[in-house]
């Protein structure tokens, strides 16, 4: 079918795999910092818990509900972050946001699965879904944790 190409561009198999079998979801960890994220108009919700020991993300868990893109992206985010330093993880958040903006997958270590989300950049309405988990991670690592929203009021 004509539309299949487009659809499979967005929903790569690896994304559906993370959606169906999310990694580090509701993992039993002892968090040192956490944050909640929401995409109000979509109803997506994500909570990120991080166990940060000596600047290294020893363990991470996410929970929540939402569309396949938001949940798969959060799942991939946890795989990426686990074992990295907070600084490295924030660098990853940066790279992810850049990918959403430019539609070009960065050639950096650990982004193999994540690069499959590059197709999302073509779908303006979905970028917020994909970014939710990453923004929430950044918020958790920032002092104080708290709540983020990907709804910037710009419709």
């Amino acid at each position, binding site marked *: 079918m*004509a539309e299949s190409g487009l659809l499979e561009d967005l929903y790569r198999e690896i994304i559906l795999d993370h959606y169906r079998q999310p990694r580090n979801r509701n993992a039993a960890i002892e968090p040192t910092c956490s944050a909640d994220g929401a995409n109000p108009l*979509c109803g997506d919700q994500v909570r990120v818990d991080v166990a940060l020991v000596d600047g290294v993300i020893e363990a991470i868990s996410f929970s929540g*509900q939402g*569309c396949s893109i938001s949940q798969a992206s959060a799942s991939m985010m946890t795989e990426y972050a686990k074992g990295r330093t907070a600084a490295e993880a924030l660098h990853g958040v940066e790279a992810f946001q850049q990918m959403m903006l430019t539609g070009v997958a960065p050639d950096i270590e650990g982004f193999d699965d994540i690069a499959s989300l590059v197709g999302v950049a073509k779908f303006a309405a979905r970028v917020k*879904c994909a970014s939710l988990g990453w923004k929430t991670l950044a918020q958790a690592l920032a002092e104080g944790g708290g709540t983020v929203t990907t709804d910037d009021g710009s419709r």
Partner: protein
Amino acid sequence: MTSIADLPAVERLPYDIARIRRDFPILKREVASGAHLVYLDNAATSQRPVQVLAEITRFYRDHNANIHRAVHTLSVEATELYEQARSKVARFIGAADPREIIFTRNTTESINLVAHAWARKFLKPGDEVVVSEIEHHSNIVPWQMLRDERGITLKYIPMLPDGTLDLDAAQSIITERTRLVSITAMSNALGTIVPLDVITARAKAVGALVLVDGAQSVPHMPVDVQALGVDFLAFSGHKMLAPFGIGVLWGRLPLLDSMDPFMGGGDMISTVSMERSTWADVPAKFEAGTPNVGDAVALGAAVDYLTALGMDEVRRHEREITDYALRRLADVPGVTIFGVPDADRRGGVISFELEGVHPHDIGQVLDTRGVAIRTGHHCAQPVMLALNVPATARASFYIYNTTAEVDALASGLEEVARFFGVK
């Protein structure tokens, strides 16, 4: 001001769906995937027929001027067209007098106008305003703001699990302290048609006014304000073939007369001095500043278009499509439809979920097949809360939709289920 009696009669046309569809060239559009558009997001906004678009262009190209009693030809013509549109709208909803038609931007502004110009003048702390749990945010938030500012009490008629209102509860929720019942005629999230007669009878029994949110009723079924016996009616042009940017508040003349203005500025005054100002008569009192003349005139053309089809026929057509869709979608494995499963008691709006697939993903996959539905909370978060879902998928119909388009939706949903591996 053109009197209603002086308006030209609108000739009735047979309900010919092929002809109707030709009036909407956007229906021939393709989306990125190459699929043909199947537009099922009519509760959000309708499409516009060429007749309405031509009217906009004609107005600006031939008659454009500001109005307000100027003496030159263009302004005289523009004023006449604007007032004629007011009379057309009055006739369309059975109003007694064109002065009862206030042009606003949309339903939201119409309701806010009542919350400011009527409620802030007449309500005291402890007075009650009653809405329902199935209202659009536009009929909730203005009353919450009023409550927080003025200490009135806001009460909700609850929703039953089938998406209808608890009419027994309504009897006790509407009390002698109730000053206003502000209620939707049809839920945009669930399609529920509200029995306005029951609500109005109770409101009148306790001496309360009734405001009807007609955003989903005026475009889709015959509405006669005098038969309804209510006091205010709010609706939006953009959901009934007219452009964005034009809406209506209808109110009874003595009631409108008793109210203070909402916004201040040009054209709503009689005299202005540095010390004080006096107000113009209705409707000018509520139309501060240069009005949206062009889109009001186009609303007149939209109303003519609907009148030619006949609102009874519009309702009949939508009832048929809805009936078909309720049965067709129920056959798709994994689909659950929210609300009453009876096309006689709902408008052309179907909210549903597909097991295991988030609404956003449903909408995305359908879009690649050209099928445009809406997903989300539909500006009715209390309904989502009551249904205990974060969001729903919603298909909504209008005069140009066909059963073939319902089939496209249904087979699209089967593809969604397959794609996401729903068993």
